């Protein structure tokens, strides 16, 4: 790699010739503004915010796609640059629905922040404005093109990262909008509802369908017994909404805040994750022993499930029949828990706090119900929970820690790592290995399946057998792996697939991350770190050793994969291919 010398704002630096001006500037602590730019996802120079002056060039080039050369002299903060940026931003704002006070992204909108930073005080261009209907058709996603700034991040994440491709630029000029083919509603196209488009949207053009009011009403209703559960990934991200450092584990404070919000019981989806491991682990063993369909593929991620149903229906038999953990929790709460506590399941409202917006769709799937009652009544994202806490004026950062409620709040280290890519696999291996060999594992960490690499593979010795496993995250990576399996290039026994890159910690319902943080931090790894340290801190780290899991099988379920389990904890899938 050759080095070149360049000068930015009078600072000289030697850099690799493959760098862009934007990267070099950030290295030097020079903050060139960006709006459309998103590292590795969207580097298209659409918004023109990162323009700079370069000696010898007549025009103002965009720093995000401008490669350095030897002897280059760049100025990032001249009057010409500042005025051009402001002019462009004013034009952008002139066709933006500027109802900031009532906007879902008020306070964490990249456009709003930039307008403040660039000192926009007046928008001089009063012209025609886009005024299109808001697409509310989906239970998960709201699309509002009146707020869209046409940065293209969602289009690229949907196409390139997720390999779904239901979003595209349509028409041209002033008529340009981002959306679906033939202006269809999002519910009528094969969107998997992973919510990665929402995660990358700098404004509120894409946002979750909020269910906060439903939960407020339930909490207010004295005839209802409102039970809440929280997914593993929520506890290592929620703190970011209250300005805590990325990856800070706030489990205890989260439980306290939920109790103060008025939930009658606070349970942990980690318990249900342990339950999933029992069911899925035994399902895998049974498939291995009885010649069932292999590879078996995990079914925890509803984004991945919908991807499989739409695009790879040939693999539906490969999916584990296990419901996802929070659905299992719902089913257990409305049966076992209700019976034990003499509560009519009809009076229970089951709320799930999830890092995910696909879970909102999942909770409404007809087949995920028992006795005509949906397992889960409502799903809120991590972001929505943060909004409720803020609205309640709870001083989150200074809250004392509290524990989850008994029985369905008890979990192991295996359950908590579900939130990171490779976590379900590792948790399953901890249990399956001990069940097969009958011996205690000497080392329970399976490092081969950890980390943020797109496709991970391992061969695990289980007694006299070798089990070949793979872990992928992001449906784009899933597509690559499935194509290799189809072509006969790869063979596995067991695969973990998560719909979002990084797994649930970077799900579509997690706190928004600024483009700047995405450039400097490995978000997936930072948040996962929080989960792995919770795992290490637990005394019990294997699902089958969870005393409450043992108890529920003794008292209620019988044995894993038994009759009762199948009735309550397993499901089937729908071929949505054409």
């Amino acid at each position, binding site marked *: 790699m050759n080095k070149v010398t360049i000068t930015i704002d009078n600072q000289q630096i030697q850099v690799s010739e493959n760098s862009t001006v934007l990267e070099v500037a950030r290295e030097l602590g020079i903050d060139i503004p960006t709006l459309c730019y998103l590292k590795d996802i969207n580097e298209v120079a659409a918004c023109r915010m990162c323009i700079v002056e370069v000696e010898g060039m007549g025009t103002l080039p965009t720093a995000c796609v401008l490669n350095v050369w030897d002897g280059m002299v760049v100025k990032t903060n001249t009057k010409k640059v500042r005025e051009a940026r402001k002019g462009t931003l004013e034009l952008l704002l002139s066709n933006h629905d500027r109802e900031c006070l009532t906007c879902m992204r008020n306070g964490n909108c990249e456009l709003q922040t930039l307008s403040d930073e660039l000192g926009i005080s007046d928008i001089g261009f009063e012209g025609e404005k886009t005024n299109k209907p808001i697409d509310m058709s989906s239970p998960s996603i709201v699309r509002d093109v009146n707020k869209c700034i046409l940065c293209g991040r969602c289009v690229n994440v949907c196409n390139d990262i997720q390999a*779904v*491709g239901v*979003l*595209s630029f*349509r028409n*041209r000029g002033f008529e340009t909008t981002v959306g679906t083919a033939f202006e269809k509603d999002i519910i009528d196209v094969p969107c998997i509802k992973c919510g990665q488009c929402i995660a990358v949207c700098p404004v509120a053009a894409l946002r979750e369908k909020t269910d906060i009011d439903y939960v407020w009403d339930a909490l207010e209703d004295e005839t209802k017994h409102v039970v809440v559960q929280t997914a593993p990934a929520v506890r290592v991200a929620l703190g970011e909404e209250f300005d805590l450092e990325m990856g800070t584990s706030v489990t205890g404070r989260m439980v306290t805040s939920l109790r103060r919000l008025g939930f009658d019981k606070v349970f942990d989806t980690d318990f249900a994750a342990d339950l999933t491991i029992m069911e899925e682990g035994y399902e895998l063993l049974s498939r291995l022993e009885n010649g069932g369909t292999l590879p078996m593929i995990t079914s925890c991620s509803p984004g991945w499930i919908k991807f499989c149903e739409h695009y790879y229906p040939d693999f539906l038999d490969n999916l584990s029949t296990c419901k996802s953990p929070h659905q299992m929790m719902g089913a257990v709460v409305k049966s076992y828990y209700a019976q034990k506590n003499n509560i009519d399941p009809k009076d229970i409202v089951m709320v799930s706090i999830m890092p995910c917006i696909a879970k909102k769709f999942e909770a409404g799937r007809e087949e995920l119900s028992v006795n005509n009652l949906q397992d889960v009544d409502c799903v809120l994202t991590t972001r929505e929970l943060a909004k409720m806490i803020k609205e309640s004026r709870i001083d989150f950062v200074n809250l004392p820690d509290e524990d989850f409620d008994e029985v369905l709040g008890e979990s192991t280290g295996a359950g908590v790592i579900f939130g990171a890519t490779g976590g379900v696999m590792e948790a399953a291996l901890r249990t399956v290995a001990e069940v097969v060999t009958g011996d205690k594992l000497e080392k329970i960490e399976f490092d081969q399946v950890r980390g943020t690499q797109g496709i991970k593979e391992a061969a695990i010795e289980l007694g006299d057998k070798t089990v070949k496993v793979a872990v992928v995250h992001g449906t784009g990576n899933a597509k690559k792996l499935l194509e290799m399996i189809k072509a006969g290039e790869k063979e596995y026994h067991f695969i973990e697939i998560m719909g979002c890159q990084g797994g649930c910690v970077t799900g579509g319902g997690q706190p928004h991350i600024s483009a700047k943080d995405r450039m400097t931090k490995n978000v997936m790894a930072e948040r996962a770190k929080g989960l792995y340290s919770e795992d290490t801190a637990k005394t019990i780290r294997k699902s089958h050793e969870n005393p409450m899991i043992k108890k529920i099988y003794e008292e209620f379920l019988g044995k894993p994969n038994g009759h009762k389990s199948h009735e309550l904890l397993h499901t089937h899938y729908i071929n949505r291919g054409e």
Partner: protein
Amino acid sequence: MDFKFDLDENKEKIDKLMEIIEEVKSKNISKKASLMPVLHDAQKMFGYLPIEVQSIISEQLNVPLAEIYGVATFYSQFSLVPKGEYEIGVCLGTACYVKGAQAIIDKITADLEVKVGGTSSDSKFSLIATRCIGACGLAPIMTINEDVYGKLKLEEISDILKKYKDK
């Protein structure tokens, strides 16, 4: 106005489209580069690019339908509705615009019940607004297929259209 695309009626053309796609595929060029020539041929063959045709192309080239739709709506040579027997083009270049081209468009829209970019329900007329066609001296100007009408006056429009209606 919705136009029904009949798959059976268009069977021969669809077979031909499949052949074209196979041929493009055999050239081993990238998917993105394959899309434009296929869309061009499809537009020529069917006169427009209905969802059925775009879906076939999407499936065969393995390009998302949304992306194809994006291309089809970006370039003005592609159309989502069948072109009428007579294509009316009204110039909206600067000279024509200041000479009242918008009023002419409004008049045609009202007379024929067709909106810009659309086709009348009897498939007789389609209407497009064009950029400058380089005849500013004749502004405002309108074309109907190969015929050119310059220095147009609003009150002439109905008579001109009548000629084509009766043809």
